[in-house]
């Protein structure tokens, strides 16, 4: 109990009535709160060992969860603002609603699970961790994502994506399930994987139109293993039937070259 009292003593007097602790869950009412105050609160609470945090009445506050470390779960009710979980390094964020632009921007580790849609540049430059979006995502998702050794960032999109999906992708995994598409309908995204030079995009059925410099190929055993794991996780989060999702043909899209622009400025 002493720990908790210590935290309460440090909370800004203006916001003390907004914070409650029930059954080991910290609850914050964020209505009208500025994002800097909210993130300050989150830093304070999480640096004192909180394991579960729930934030209510979120409405456009930016950078929620930014630079937080360690393993904990943050549930967000409402609409979080841009750059949700930017530079985050460990926690799991569950959004009960839609995410705006830049969700998971340059995230290093952790998870973001969105029960709805996510906006443009979701997973921009993501370097590790996983993002699961139940429905559609906006433009330029996974742009500049990269991997290093065992750190492989992953974005799973339940619906469809906008243009420039995985543009300049250098590493990691993007999986597009297309569950919001009608039978035989294709994803409208143009320029998928343009400038891609590493990583892999998996698609369920033939829904993506390939951008320049990419090629499509059959999946192997290892690919299937990865896909199965991700689909299982997706189905668990969103209560979707695993067999139905797996009942499709998966392909993989990979770059033709590791240096697509090698000769751009030379003759």
């Amino acid at each position, binding site marked *: 109990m002493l720990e908790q009292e210590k935290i309460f003593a440090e909370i800004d007097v203006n916001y003390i009535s907004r914070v409650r602790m029930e059954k080991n869950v910290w609850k914050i009412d964020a209505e009208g709160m500025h994002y800097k105050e909210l993130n300050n609160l989150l830093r304070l609470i999480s640096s004192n060992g909180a394991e579960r945090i729930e934030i209510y009445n979120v409405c*456009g506050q930016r950078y929620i969860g930014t630079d937080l470390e360690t393993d904990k779960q943050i549930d967000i009710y409402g609409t979080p603002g841009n750059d949700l979980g930017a530079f985050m390094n460990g926690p799991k964020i569950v959004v009960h609603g839609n995410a705006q632009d830049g969700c998971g921007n340059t995230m290093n580790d952790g998870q973001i699970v969105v029960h709805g849609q996510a906006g443009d540049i979701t997973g921009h430059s993501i370097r590790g961790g996983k993002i699961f979006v139940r429905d*559609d995502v*906006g*433009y330029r998702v996974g742009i500049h994502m990269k991997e290093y050794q065992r750190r492989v960032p992953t974005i799973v999109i339940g619906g469809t994506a*906008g243009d*420039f999906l995985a543009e300049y992708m250098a590493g990691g995994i993007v999986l597009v399930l297309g569950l919001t598409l009608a039978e035989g309908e294709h994803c409208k995204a143009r320029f998928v994987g343009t400038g891609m030079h590493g990583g892999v995009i998996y698609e369920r059925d033939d829904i993506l139109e390939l951008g320049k410099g990419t090629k499509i190929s059959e999946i192997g055993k290892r690919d299937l293993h990865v896909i199965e794991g991700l689909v299982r996780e997706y189905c668990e989060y969103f209560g979707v039937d695993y067999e139905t999702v797996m009942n499709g043909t998966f392909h993989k899209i990979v770059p033709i070259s590791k240096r697509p622009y090698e000769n751009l400025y030379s003759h």
Partner: protein
Amino acid sequence: MRNLTSLNNPFNDDKDFAGCSIFGMMNLEGKRFSSRDPVRAIANMHERGNGLGGGFAVYGIYPDFKDYYAFHIMYLSRDAKEKTDRILAGSFNIIYDEEMQTRPANVRDPPLVWRYFVQPKQRRLENQTEDDYVTERVMRINTETGKAFVFSSGKNMGVFKGVGYPEDIADFFCLEDYQGYLWTVHGRFPTNTPGWWGGAHPFNILDWTVVHNGELSSYGINRRYLEMYGYKCTMQTDTEVLAYAVDLLMRRQHLPIEIVAKIFAAPLWSEIDAMESEQQRLHRVLRQTYGSLLMNGPFSIVVAHHGEMIGLTDRIKLRPLVAGTRGDFLYLSSEEAAMRLVSPTLDKFWHPRGGEPVVGRLRSEPKVEVLASVEA
């Protein structure tokens, strides 16, 4: 002395993080509503602006004077008012005029703002339409003194704008006293043009208004093209050309928004090449005829005039725009949260594709249809 930095800037920011914010809200049945929701919505995106501009366009606000052109004019000097009054008296019957109601608010150096309800003098019209006549006079006032600017010139609508955050501009102009069925709002983060009163959005000519997030690198070409049609750019910022371009294409040349969208945000040549031959011909002709009105650079805009609100982004969607509907309302916004603040539940919410317009039309108009490009 106390170090004020720690009070004003407790987080030691050394940089402004921003982009403009736009918001539009329309009642498709034409029912009027107060400034409450538009102001709350734009204030929720406070972070996007930096206090160097904010403004509102409101439709349906002067029902008692709906047959007269309502001019809102800002005067940077008393002298300019005298000169302008002479032009107005010579060209128009002035039905009523007054200093606009304002109150002290957190805005920077407010000019004198005056409202006139006017009617063109019939004997002076000659072969011109009233709209063309008014446009010409507005251009004349805006260029004549350099100190007087007509920032609103439509019928039964009005633009309110200035230097400050939009919520402060609303406060300054006492917007809680006005009701309209269509509101568009802008919070500004000027990138490379001055933050002055005339440079705030919305930009207006007649009842056409534009709010814009982004920048038009094609401004020079657009401006020279529009000058051939008598439009003079005086507001020192890029967005102005958009207001005149919609007036030229939609009012004067009667082009539908679906075509205008393809002029402003033309498909890439590679896409045109892949089209069916009829479509290909249309798009080639558009690009050849209206190449100078291609809006190059990132943009998301909300265009409005009586009976219609239109949202559009550039063809590769370099600026944000989301749309939603709830009952009789259509919302357009830079961020979803602003929309959810005024309407937590939405019947439909979607991310419009780049270059594809979202159109809301009054249902009572002859061509009744709500909203074209809904894809979700």
